[in-house]
């Protein structure tokens, strides 16, 4: 049995002079009980708030990503605390920066190494469509080689825009069905990219 609680046992009444307004929880939301929801929502909730992003930072957008991860714009508030660099361990591939034709096979290989469910966010104009570099050596958008879920435009996008992109991904994750990755529709989509 747990020790008796000694601190904070007398709940504070809400006081107009405090800057913090304490509102009691609505009926039925506290204590033991049952919550009725769909399994998909709960799984979606858990998944979206614990993303492990893989920052695939190639150029200038990578520096804005560093600013996003730093304390001013903190991406960790949204659950993306642990950035990993191994595709085997990550859920979200954030492609930030120009992908050249030399780099495209590397990007594809990193994508293939990720385990389902996996999401891709193309940050910046160069990753979305080649950006200002309509040249012989730049891939005109990473969706030529891998399927992309969210595109964040900008050159480079402000950290708020990158956070907005991550929040959209979170919406997608929350709304995604559990069987989507095994569905024929998804397999057909990957088929268009040549991925089995």
């Amino acid at each position, binding site marked *: 049995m747990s020790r008796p609680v000694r601190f904070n046992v007398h709940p504070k009444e809400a006081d107009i002079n405090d800057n913090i307004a304490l509102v009691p929880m609505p009926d039925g939301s506290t204590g033991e009980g049952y919550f009725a929801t769909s399994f998909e929502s709960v799984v979606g909730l858990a998944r979206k708030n614990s993303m492990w992003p893989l920052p695939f930072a190639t150029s200038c957008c990578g520096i*804005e990503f560093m600013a996003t991860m730093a304390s001013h714009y903190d991406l960790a508030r949204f659950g993306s605390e642990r950035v990993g660099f191994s595709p085997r361990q990550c859920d979200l591939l954030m492609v930030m920066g120009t992908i050249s034709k030399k780099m495209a096979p590397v990007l594809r290989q990193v994508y293939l190494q990720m385990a389902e469910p996996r999401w891709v966010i193309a940050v910046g104009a160069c990753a979305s469509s080649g950006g200002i*570099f309509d040249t012989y*050596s730049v891939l005109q958008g990473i969706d030529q080689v891998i399927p992309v879920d969210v595109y964040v435009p900008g050159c480079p996008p402000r950290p708020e825009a990158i956070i907005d992109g991550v929040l959209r991904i979170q919406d997608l994750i929350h709304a995604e069905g559990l069987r989507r990755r095994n569905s024929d529709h998804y397999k057909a989509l990957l088929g268009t990219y040549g991925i089995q």
Partner: protein
Amino acid sequence: MNEAHQPITLPEGSIEQQTTTLNLGPTHPATHGVFQNILQLDGERIVSTEQTVGYIHRAFEKLAERRPLYQITPITDRLNYCSSPINNMGWHITCEKLLGIQTPKRVDYLRIIIMELARITDHLICNSIVGVDTGAFTGFLYVMQYRELAYEIYEEVCGSRLTTNIGRVGGFERNFNNTAFTKLEKFLAEYPKVLKEFEDLFNRNRIFMERTQGTGAISADRALAYGFTGPNLRAAGVDYDVRVHSPYASYEDFEFDVPVGNTGDNYDRFMVRNGEMWQSLRIIEQAYRKIQQFKGAEAEVYHAEVPAYYLPKKEDVYTKMEALIWHFKIIMGETAIPKGEIYHSVEGGNGELGFYFISDGGRTPYRLHFRRPCFIYYQAYSELAKGAMLSDAIITLSSLNLIAGELDA
């Protein structure tokens, strides 16, 4: 003799039968940017390295042949994107030299403030990432706050944070307003304390010193032979600084020291960059005081009077026909560029950033070549990493401050 076919010999006293190949691939947390190193290891020691670059080759030089002068400025941004104002201003100063435009002193001093601010932000990223690579994450988070303040100052002048596209041929697009100067004063007041604290964390930190001293060393002879410039060369002992040797933008009016190291190892590079940040703060303070001495009409000067190359004010462009026509002509490159060639260099965050501009009198350059310091000194990496342990090689890589945009162009 093709060096790719030379057999790799294990060093004396090795207990291995053959070398291990490790691919420090293009995507790796320790390589800040995309470049690849295929390492041959004898246990933990590196026997040889083979570098592959070009993973972010965006064909800047070919792109520049298609674009008139103002359209090239956004490309120069993306060379060393940690200090893009220096690249922009280097390009504008090159154009001014070719066109024979003389900028007023106030413009030069404002340019110096922005360039030195950019140099501080470049060095603070490099040094804090060296800290992150040795495992010390706090320094990075602490100084990035001041990079945000520098971004706010850029935003007041040009509107954007990172890839600034700041300035015009002949000056700036708008005068610095009071907010910009207030933020600059805040930066000058707060940043020295932060830098002092950052130095207290690292400079005499035993672990940091033992990791960085003696590793990645290069002698001054070899550094000069490899074409090193900038903080990496100054760490090796040679005090070559383009701002002192061929002053541009009135640098000769300012008093500053050039920090120089001894052995060219990682610790010296770290210390030289810290020293340069202090000197940049000194220069900004002097420039700010000089600017405050301009009164009245002189305080409103923010560009040279060259209507043929300086875009007219937006209020005029939207209301007057003549200004609209000038705006169109200048952007599309229909104003006359004299024939000729010029090589001009500025002191970028990594060294001598040079612009070799050949004009045949047309709208766009006939040839524009960027002398990129990162590309030139990355060749020496195999010499720096030979015989080092793997972890030292990673620190060497990050202390060289390789920016992929400048490496590949």
